[in-house]
């Protein structure tokens, strides 16, 4: 992660690094914005990382 060139323009902060925050951050970078993804714990992934499988397809959650 580098530093944004111009600190104000074109940056978005996403609070929370669960599936919602991560997806928002990914889409924002694809759309052309610099993102600060803020997560309070040591890893992103949130509750979804604790799930074994997901409903209804029973895909692996990780």
């Amino acid at each position: 992660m580098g530093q944004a060139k111009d600190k104000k323009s074109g940056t978005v902060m996403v609070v929370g690094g669960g599936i919602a925050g991560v997806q928002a951050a990914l889409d924002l970078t694809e759309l052309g914005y610099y993102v600060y993804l803020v997560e309070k714990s040591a890893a992103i992934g949130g509750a979804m990382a604790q799930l074994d499988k997901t409903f209804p397809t029973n895909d692996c959650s990780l």
Partner: protein
Amino acid sequence: MRPRYIDADKCTACGLCTKYCPRHLVDQYNEGLAVTRPIHIDYAQAVPATYFIDPEACLYLKHGTCQICVCTCQSKAIDFSQKAEEKELQIGAVIMAPGFGRVPDATLAKYSYGSHPDVMTSLEFERLLCASGPFEGEVKCLSDRRHPKRIAFIQCVGSRDLGCNNGYCSSVCCMYAIKEAMVAKEHDPELEITIYYMDMRTQGKGFDAAQKKAEAMGIRFVRARVADVMPWDKNLKLTYSTLDGTHSFEPYDIVVLSVGLDAPADAKNLGEIAGFALNDYDFCKTETFAPLLTTKPGVFVAGAFQGPKDIPESVTQSSAAAGLAAGLIAKDRGKALVHKTYPKEQKTGKDEEVRIGVFVCHCGINISSVVDVASVEQYTEGMEGVVYHAQSLYSCSQDAQEVLKAKIKEHNLNRVVIAACSPRTHEPLFQETLKDAGLNRCLFEMVNIRDHCSWVHANEPAAATQKSKDLVRMGIAKARHIQPLPEQTVPVTNKALILGGGVAGLTAALTIADQGFHSYVIEKEEKLGGHLQHLSYTLQGEKVSTVLSELTDKVKKNKLIEVLTSTEMTLVNGFVGNFSSVLTTTKGKKATETTIDHGVIIIATGGREHRPEVVLGNPVKYSETVVTQRELEQRLAGKGKSLAPKSVVMVQCAGSRGDDLNYCSKVCCNHAVKNALKIKSLDPASQVVVLYRDMRTYGFAEDAYREAREKGVVFIPYTMDSKPVFKSSGKKMSVTFQDPILRDEVTMTPEVLALSVGIVSEGTDDLSKLLKIPVNEDKFFLEAHVKLRPVELPVSGVYVCGLAHSPKPVEEIIVQAQAAAAKASIPLCKGFVSVEPTISCVDKEACIGCGLCESLCPYQSIRIIKDENGKRKAETITASCKGCGICASHCPVFAISMGGYTDEQINAQITAFGAQ
């Protein structure tokens, strides 16, 4: 920013530190069911893949002793000098996605949670089921490690419960309970599992089908309220009462509490810091028609904090919130992006001498504790093309990348083979290093001697070493034939075509216009607005007509949006970034055709009200007295005094959920409650009876359901074994049903019989053929990935939102439209589509034009064209090819090759396997 006490650039996530750390720590990731150490990583796949030290438990940070980890860490990554940092950032927009919180333990205590180890929350049970969980996926009782025979799930723990001030429905518990029950049953088919519920709320797309499957597997569903759970000998005694008022009890080995999603614990704090309001339950306050806007401009919300929801809906909201935030600061797009530059790629010609460098990785002790890495490395000496070989402790570490770059230069390497872990996780890293060194990233081959050798043959070191040698020999054989592959991009026409001018299409068009792009909205009817034209008010009381006229006005005034009514798409050609469509506009008898070019397509074609002629086995004629909920709403919204009927019977699932449609239409329960409340507000003396199977007023709509009951609306469940019977009685219709509380048959002749009729798809078959996009068995479009790509379709550049995807309420439609627009804006913003180098390529000389590949391609990415001599030849559409290889493996004349996996390369690998 809190410190990790570990240098992320140096840590290789080898795990040695955790093994030596002397202190135990309760493992929160495993819901407290396992122990870890103060220095640890939550799970192997965690991002960032850097360990961290819990300062509250570390002996050094607490007491200034120990520091064993410092001497064990071979990459010198432990750094106790790290301090917490405060950063001030200037930002253009904020997205709040803090997730959800826990239901307090006090709410769970009445079920003996906390006092008996075999009563656990659903998340704890999830960890028990998981292969990476405390018992490696084996389901055991926590009390004595015996295998359970009987398991009960209790639904609505901490949801729909005013006792803990959670009046709302958590929307996800019914689904995860079914999932966990099914997974447990797969582990042990002998298990007896019962789910105690109030209403099964499996309203999502394809969810009812999963419940049916669970029933077929033998999982028992009992509609009951559980009074308590008490220890009973070695077991647990679960006491419950059913609707008819009888009490029973049953023994269980494990009781799982399906806990709801609470508001995040720090919600109030977040609200104060960022300056937005919360709702009554401490979730973020939003409006039906602006579901992702907080009360503070520039701050958006997504995920469970907006209201309890499942993964696909969270993902959809996130994309939508990203689109809204991007739209707000569109003028600054790209200004803050940091672009990486690479040195010029050196040319690697076909005839050039092959110079292979082989790097064999120890992966700390992950590989080297089993495989003799030195002998594997030595084995490559003298192999054809190998000019350099070496070992590395961690080939993925930052300094190893520097070494790799230096060695490529020093030995003039033009192929790199790395024998280490899985390409799934690390190939992109090494390819990046190759690019940094000026090599084409495809001149790389990875051999997985960790997963395939040291892990699976941990007890046979000699055989694992031999297998490593075999795999490395094969990798080198393939590497001799690897060729550089071009990095291609395809330009994009930065306009969107939006099919459908209902709330979904209009919302999508505005979201795209906010990004600064042009769109065409085509609507087959004369007027914009779709179904919203027939609705008057929402469950929350907003007036629909005002919102709709504002929406259409905004669209009409927007210079970037071109609206074509009475228009349908009749032909489409091209691929992502480069579509060309023929639009046919019919005015009276005159039809005119226009051709437009556009880069993306958003399908927002909607659905229509289902009007079944037979409901629950009763023939139905719609009239003044037999109406749909929509017709009832129109009557109630009219002018005049005697609008409210004196008596109404509403019948839910009229046509849905196995009556003649197989699915739940998701909106009808809310619609019934909305109309019932309206009737009660017009005339409190009106008698309203709702016959239902499961009331699915999920989320905050549960409040309205409760309000309706408080105001005297009577809700009576029926089952498919005892359906209500309709009989004509003059102009009216009499309804006979079983009342489970009276335990008797009741006949009513209401003034109005309102049928909750559900939603069916419309025109998806034709569109599916035109765009070659699959639909599911219920004729709704099938998304690219149900969980993670919910608004994308399998064909690149085509997106879906609204009722064409599945039935859903207007709030969800708006979010989905914003999400589809955000996703569609990505190629428009970039101006190009990047093409993966590993795609198919047709040898035009050899191709016989049979068309087999075109018919098999799941992504519509290979087509038959006529060449300059008029001969049929296949051609790959590079922009949308996913490189799956189906075309190449089926080509009868071997005319198709896959970049990176040519026949020559694979044959060389197989030959090397036999060569010993």
